[in-house]
């Protein structure tokens, strides 16, 4: 016969269902962190621009690769140009053309906004660089 104390000891070494759940949760968390870390790291190595359409991410583009991105929605069309490491709105059929006249941007605190088309071009923050400013008053 085992004493009460010995029984408790044995219980400690027997994996319980709750332990397995915890291990599973920790493993999942570790995997998630690894993915996030790899993803985040990739973005820190260069500069990327995210195009956001009506609040939804439309795509993330590497500023090292010259390219044009044409976006057409019910609201109108925009032509985004990435050239020599900067991004600008090359063309748009919005009435005000403020997004086009803004020219190229390079700061994560200074997005290009095409308000009538609900389109925003946002430079993703480069955490290796100190920020030169946090917001733009205009």
């Amino acid at each position: 016969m085992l004493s009460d104390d010995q029984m408790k000891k044995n219980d400690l070494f027997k994996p319980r269902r709750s332990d397995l759940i915890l291990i599973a949760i920790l493993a999942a968390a570790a995997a998630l962190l690894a993915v996030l870390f790899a993803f985040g790291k990739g973005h820190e190595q260069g500069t990327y621009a995210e195009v956001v359409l009506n609040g939804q991410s439309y795509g993330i583009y590497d500023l090292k690769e010259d390219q044009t991105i044409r976006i057409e929605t019910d609201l109108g069309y925009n032509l985004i140009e990435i050239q020599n490491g900067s991004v600008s709105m090359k063309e748009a059929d919005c009435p005000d053309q403020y997004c086009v006249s803004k020219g190229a941007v390079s700061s994560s605190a200074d997005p290009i906004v095409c308000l009538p088309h609900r389109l925003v071009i946002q430079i993703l923050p480069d955490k290796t660089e100190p920020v030169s400013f946090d917001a733009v008053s205009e």
Partner: protein
Amino acid sequence: MKKAVLAFLIICACLSVGCGKQSDMVRKDPEISQPQIEETDPSEPTSRDLFAMDTFMTLTAYGENALQALDAAEDEILRLDELLSTGKEESEIFRLNQDGEGTLSEESAYLYERSLEVNELTDGAFDPMIYPLMQAWGFTTHEYAVPAPEELAGLLELVDLSAVSYSDKDHHISFEKNKMEIDFGGIAKGYTSARVVSILKEQGINHAVISLGGNVQVLGTKPDGSLWKVAIRDPENVSGFIGVVQVSDKAVITSGGYERYFEENGKVYHHILDPKTGYPAETGLLSVTIVSEDGTLADGLSTALYVMGLELAETLWRENRDLFEAVFVTDSGKLYITEGLEKEFLTDRYPVNVIR
């Protein structure tokens, strides 16, 4: 291991009772023990972008409660957009303009009284009754047109605060002339940024920066204790900046003709109308930035000082230097700052003239 499980369960339990509304959700399904509240890393920014008040807004907050705080801030912005919009048929202001009279809610009464205050302070350069003029120029609809001089003369009659009767006791307001219309657009965004900051504060946030379409207000300092850096747009080159002002607990609000304008027959007409002439203000200023703890005041003053011109603006600042600081860019490319910004304004662009 047992202790670890216990600790994990305790953390889950703590998280799930942290907030009333969220814990209601947890109780509905007791099988799910996953924490329902997302706690954010207080050293990392949490951001929210939204389109409201005919502009693009970005809110960034630091703190464990940042997500819930930003939810509350967004709700407040959408509420104020509904309340203050001149264009939305259900809004209080729309109904008041239709009826020519009404009883203002507590909040609209506050905005009306603040409008009167800025109107008096700026000798009429800020006027909440300017809305019929803004409509005639198409700045409210984006269908721009230069109104005929006779039309403007007629509309100027409606920009008349002396023909508004208002009781600060029961908040009843009435317009004595037909077709008079009010608009808090000149201070609405500044008021909204002030409200957002106070809501973030109530939610336990100590560090935040918000931009409501370029109307910037900051809460506290940056998380590392340094000042927030707010760049000021260069009115002559809209992809550039004239400098950076370093602030904590301040609104930084800029008005400039470059923000909204149209061209007709080779002439540029911008959206900052002089309530006394009905035409876009041409006073030799390209932009005015106001730095103040009071977002509502900063918003109203940025427009008003643009209308007043540099000389009158300087006088106004000297008489009210405890209320605000300012940055001016003139059409001859000169840059002026008020004395209080001498240490906080950084630029490599122009010689800086300091107003003392």
